């Protein structure tokens, strides 16, 4: 059998029991792997109303059919659970080496269920799997945790860990691996912390097969030379995501001072040239041909990062234009186990609340000293951090400022202002996990591309198609930064699995996966009422630059959303029609 190992590792923390079972191959055929297959297991195993931080929630680590093969950019791991931030279905992906180690140990997936009554870690060495006491690790930051495990087991083990933020159930706690790689969004780290699982430590020595390995290598090598290592993708190597800073600045969508502006006067300090100047080395995930990671030294900090999302949401959006400060903040977030996007978002919100005199959080835009204290305070819920740990949505419910609480469904905005890329507004509103840039990234064609960013014309279809594309791609799993076609994905998958697979099959799988995520959220009571944007996007015009005077008017947004529902075969409440479900095999 090619691609899949055919085995799931199931870890029952309540009873401290580890079992294996066959991977459901019918589900694998329909949902591919990674994001999609993880969501299918979650949908079947975690019913409506389950508490995200309760034992009944599960934490699913899912590899994909390409994981561990020579297919480039296939090294990521999907982590699927119910989100404590949004109450929605949540999938995150994490780079590094952990996915390949899990697969080489012989498993397609690791499903964590129940809750331990004391801190534990999961040790996987091929078929030797154990839960071990983690009291010596509990309370440690992610970096120290990883260093300590590597001293014990060796450098060739991969570690997935949660930090103090996850232990303290901060709803935007992340999971870290290979020191600087994160599954950032929606609180996967809090779910891990709630189960008292400090880490997964894994080393595999096995291999991954292919139905037609010669064919796969031939197709993959051709793709590697002629499709991957091209100008379309090599920005990830030459610059990495900091390249986006300048694009956002010039197109007026760089979040600044909690999305009050789309331009930042100190942007020169955070643009790509500044990051590149501080760079020590490039780093990629296992099987990556690009190497987007920038390992830098800025001031007294070394860190792999900061990525665009951190430079924007935790930089310009907090009024901070000093790369050294942002790198330090990035490093604190990584160490404490916090999503730097949501952490930046919640700090920016507190800054505006203070400056507007609505509630005094004691922190203002550009206040570097306080900004750098906050990751530690949030992760440990001390002082001001105890409040900010609740996230933007809950802070606004308590103290006001709802119209500029930049979140959807409880997930804070990433670094693209939808007033200058109207399709991005639709993407935020309809992404299953809330305001998310990974479900669809229409900004590439709008603000950064050729399409008019200030129109709803054609945007519903664009967002829908991109959502299917990403759903399929992140299920296989391939990295976001390889802009490859459905045809190429299908050709490689066919050689791997030894059966005919078309681009159309993958597109349909993408649509099925996206709709399954919607069904999960509908089962939780969500619908059209939740597909909304903060008032600021509808009615606060941007004050300068390329987006001067722009909003995304609510009427236009609603028209775009209605068209989107209609194109999707969803009713006016955003529910898939029975005909649509039947066509997708979801009835």
């Amino acid at each position: 059998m090619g691609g899949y190992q055919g085995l799931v590792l199931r870890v029952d923390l309540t009873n401290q029991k580890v079992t294996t079972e066959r991977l459901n191959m019918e589900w694998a055929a329909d949902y591919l792997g990674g994001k999609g297959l993880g969501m299918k297991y979650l949908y079947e195993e975690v019913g409506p109303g389950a508490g995200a931080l309760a034992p009944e929630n599960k934490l699913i680590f899912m590899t994909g059919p390409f994981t561990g093969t020579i297919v480039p950019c296939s090294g990521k791991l999907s982590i699927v659970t119910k989100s404590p931030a949004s109450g929605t279905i949540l999938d995150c992906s994490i780079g590094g080496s952990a996915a390949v180690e899990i697969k080489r140990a012989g498993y397609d997936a690791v499903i964590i269920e129940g809750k331990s009554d004391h801190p534990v870690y999961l040790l996987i060495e091929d078929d030797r799997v154990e839960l071990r006491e983690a009291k010596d690790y509990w309370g440690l930051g992610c970096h120290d945790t990883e260093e300590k495990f590597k001293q014990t087991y060796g450098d060739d083990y991969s570690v997935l860990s949660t930090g103090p933020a996850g232990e303290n159930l901060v709803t935007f706690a992340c999971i870290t691996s290979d020191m600087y790689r994160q599954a950032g969004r929606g609180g996967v780290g809090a779910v891990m912390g709630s189960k008292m699982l400090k880490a997964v430590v894994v080393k595999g020595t096995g291999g991954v097969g292919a139905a037609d390995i010669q064919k796969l290598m031939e197709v993959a090598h051709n793709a590697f030379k002629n499709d991957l290592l091209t100008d379309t993708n090599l920005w990830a190597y030459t610059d990495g995501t900091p390249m986006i800073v300048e694009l956002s600045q010039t197109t007026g969508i760089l979040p600044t001072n909690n999305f009050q502006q789309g331009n930042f006067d100190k942007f020169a300090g955070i643009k790509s040239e500044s990051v590149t100047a501080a760079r020590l080395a490039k780093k990629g995930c296992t099987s990556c041909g690009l190497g987007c990671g920038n390992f830098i030294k800025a001031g007294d900090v070394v860190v792999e990062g900061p990525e665009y999302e951190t430079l924007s949401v935790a930089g310009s959006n907090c009024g901070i234009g000093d790369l050294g400060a942002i790198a330090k903040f990035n490093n604190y977030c990584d160490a404490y186990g916090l999503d730097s996007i949501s952490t930046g978002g919640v700090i920016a919100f507190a800054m505006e609340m203070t400056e507007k005199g609505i509630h005094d959080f004691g922190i203002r835009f550009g206040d570097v000293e306080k900004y750098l204290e906050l990751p530690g305070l949030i992760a440990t819920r001390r002082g001001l951090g105890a409040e900010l740990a609740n996230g933007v949505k809950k802070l606004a419910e308590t103290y006001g400022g709802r119209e500029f609480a930049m979140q959807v469904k409880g997930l804070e905005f990433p670094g693209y202002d939808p007033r200058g890329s109207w399709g991005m507004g639709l993407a935020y509103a309809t992404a299953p996990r809330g305001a998310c840039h990974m479900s669809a990234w229409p900004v590439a064609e709008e603000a950064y591309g050729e399409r008019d960013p200030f129109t709803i014309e054609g945007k519903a279809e664009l967002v829908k198609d991109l959502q299917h594309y990403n759903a399929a791609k992140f299920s296989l799993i391939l990295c976001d930064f390889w802009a490859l076609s459905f045809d190429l994905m299908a050709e490689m998958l066919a050689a791997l699995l030894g059966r005919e697979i078309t681009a159309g099959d993958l597109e349909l799988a993408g649509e099925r996966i996206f709709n399954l995520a919607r069904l999960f959220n509908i089962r939780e009571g969500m619908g059209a009422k939740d597909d909304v944007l903060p008032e600021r996007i509808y009615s606060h015009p941007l004050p300068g630059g390329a987006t001067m005077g722009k909003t995304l008017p609510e009427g236009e947004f609603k028209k775009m959303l209605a068209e989107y529902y209609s194109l999707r075969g969803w009713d006016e409440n955003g529910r898939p029609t029975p005909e649509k479900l039947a066509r997708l095999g979801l009835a």
Partner: protein
Amino acid sequence: MKLKFQPEKCIGCHLCELACSGYKEGVFNPALARLQVSSKYKSYNLVNEARLCDRCLKCVDACTTGALKFDAAQLVLNGDECVNCGACFEACPTGVLRPGGQGFPLVCDGCRGDPYCVKWCPHGALLVEEAR
């Protein structure tokens, strides 16, 4: 020919090892590759290292049965003559020579002068140097 590693150009993707094991062993498994590359953060530094066969031929000298030969500018193993004595592994100064699934040494034959590991290296960290 000889392989050369430039650590500053390595991004730690392991495509070289995956290619080597895929072409030579028919499975994607870095443990069966004829070279080993490691790229890890150690004490907050990124350390890139590689073990490559540098054709020192100490394994050939150590071979007790003549199964390992250097012939037509490449290392060759005659499996029928190998008795799995392990002398070649002990003689290998870098440790790059390792046993495969059946215990036979995984010998780097340089892919007839056009190594797959080099073809799959995205940013030129692996190079072919001149013939010995």
